[in-house]
């Protein structure tokens, strides 16, 4: 009943009342931006089906059907970069979540407030450093002739020939997970801590009256309260599971060609196909593949979450 009344009222109002003009003007800069830099590039995805050349541009280059995709998937590259992107992201989500929730629970329980404050400030620090800086920090350890690690090994074993770590594939998967955790776990932990400190004291007071220990309180009050923010973070991360963190995968391994098998993700591959191979058609095809699968994963994850817990879904 209420709904029909609203509909009636809406119907009677003109589509463009004079008083709304200001709102359209206010939205205009944003709208223009979105059209140019968000929607025009979507039209540009047509290049994925073109044999693009710089002379003819988007409007003149000949169409070539699915040739770019065939070329992309015929090589082994597509499988490798997709595997790397997805598997790394899954591990990141799992490891970071576990560490961040653990650290935030520990921070909450600390008796010393000043200790908690100081460590929090330290925790958040790496989040504000760029990947360019992080790459240099990592390099200080792994540098071939001057790095800490090689000098340490030389001192311990007396071996004089230094290892070039930027060619040793096996160390990179765990290293990238660790570097990624180094940069982002502390920040998430502090974020969860803020959510925890927003929980009303009444829950804990009631629990104390019922004789609950701190452990039981954490299990039955604190962790359930984190459920919303955790599920939101997971949804966001799952929706972006086909999106590799370019900075991490490009800067930290110093774009070392010998490591591509374990460090190349869709984003670095697209960048290289564009800048090094100058293959516009195929890199657009890879980008379209990424956007499309990303889009459907996001919808799928959202649907699943809506089934389980409608409150936590995004739309």
């Amino acid at each position, binding site marked *: 009943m209420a709904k029909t009344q609203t509909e009636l009222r809406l119907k009677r109002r003109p589509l463009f009342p004079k008083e709304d003009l200001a709102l359209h003007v206010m939205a205009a800069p944003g709208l223009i931006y979105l059209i140019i830099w968000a929607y025009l590039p979507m039209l540009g995805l047509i290049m994925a089906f073109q044999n693009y050349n710089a002379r003819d541009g988007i409007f003149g280059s000949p169409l070539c059907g699915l040739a770019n995709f065939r070329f992309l998937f015929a090589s082994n590259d597509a499988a490798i970069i997709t595997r790397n992107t997805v598997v790394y992201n899954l591990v990141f989500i799992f490891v970071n979540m576990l560490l961040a929730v653990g650290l935030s629970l520990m921070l909450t329980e600390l008796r010393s407030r000043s200790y908690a404050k100081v460590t929090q400030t330290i925790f958040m620090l*790496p989040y504000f450093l760029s990947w360019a800086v992080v790459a240099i920090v990592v390099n200080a350890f792994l540098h071939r002739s001057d790095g800490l690690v090689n000098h340490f090994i030389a001192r311990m074993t007396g071996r004089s020939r230094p290892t070039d770590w930027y060619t040793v594939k096996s160390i990179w998967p765990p290293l990238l997970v660790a570097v990624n955790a180094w940069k982002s776990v502390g920040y998430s932990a502090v974020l969860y801590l803020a959510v925890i400190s927003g929980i009303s004291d009444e829950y804990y007071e009631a629990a104390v009256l019922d004789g609950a220990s701190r452990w039981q309180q954490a299990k039955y009050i604190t962790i359930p309260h984190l459920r919303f923010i955790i599920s939101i973070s997971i949804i966001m991360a799952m929706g972006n599971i086909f999106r590799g963190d370019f900075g991490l995968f490009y800067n930290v391994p110093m774009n070392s060609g010998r490591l591509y098998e374990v460090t190349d993700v869709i984003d670095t591959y697209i960048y290289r196909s564009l800048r090094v191979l100058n293959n516009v058609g195929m890199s657009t095809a890879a980008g379209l593949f990424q956007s499309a699968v990303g889009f459907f994963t996001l919808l799928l994850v959202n649907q699943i979450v809506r089934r389980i817990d409608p409150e936590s879904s995004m739309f």
Partner: protein
Amino acid sequence: MSTVDLNSTTVETTRSTKSRYRPHQSGLNVISRPWDFAFMLLIGIFSLFILIPMALVVIVSFSSELSITKVGFSFTPTEWTLDGYKYLFRVGDQLLNSYLVTIFHSIVGTLMAMAVMTLYSYVLAQRRFRFRLFYTWILFFTMLFGGGLVPTYILNTRYLGIGDSIWIFLLPGLVSAYNVIILRTFINSTIPDTLFEAARIDGAGHWRIFFSVVLPLFKAGIATIGLFQIVGRWNNWFTGMLYIQKPHLIPLQTMLMKIQQTIDFLKQNSELANTPDGLRLLRELPNQNLRMATTVIVILPIIFAYPFFQRYFVTGLTVGSVKG
């Protein structure tokens, strides 16, 4: 009613951030001493895990080149020196230039982005506006799907012609859908609809309401998003790497990447290279400590500034995660 509820949540979040760990002070039970000690230890270990790599960079920036050849990058160099920093200021034309580019695009870019985004979020916050859904979806869809790197690159370089110019830092990336939605949530949760209504009845237009009602009540939200924008722009190396060729437009972080590949980038763009004496000096420059000194100079502003703004980064995101 729901607006009022959201409102009180926000206030509570802000207040409780100031007086964290109330449970212990209000006489609630706490964990046992041994566990407290264990937690302190684990948290301390993680803090060291964060600090030690950064300390290494700082120490190397003060290590002499001789020490580096002898013992490598070490926490205990055999010889300390200020050479890295001294030389940095002598050949620092490129550094200064890059600093200016980064400061300019961090500040101007943030101001422009905040202007566009706050206005747009104000529009989205108008529950009675008939086109609200249209504007929301046209924004929200960009979070789900996008053209990606290559079409954007072709658009910017070929069709808009802003590739190798300062505009590339300012225009693309002006609106972040995620930030606008956080801002909208901020407005809706701090300013009740009734306040808009009241202002409207008093005869205020939307511009008037925006400037004299929303903006003053909305400072915390703007500060939070603005700070994220500034940090994001300060740390942006990608735009410089992808688009910029002209040395005088290279931003700080991209410069850092370039000297990571070759320290010569600093030297080539120094005025000293024009004289024979200067050229000899450049050839004798220390490399590794100069590189680390540059890194320290690049992260210094962030390290100093961020503890002061720390609380904004936390409260901002907790409010932002309130479902819109």
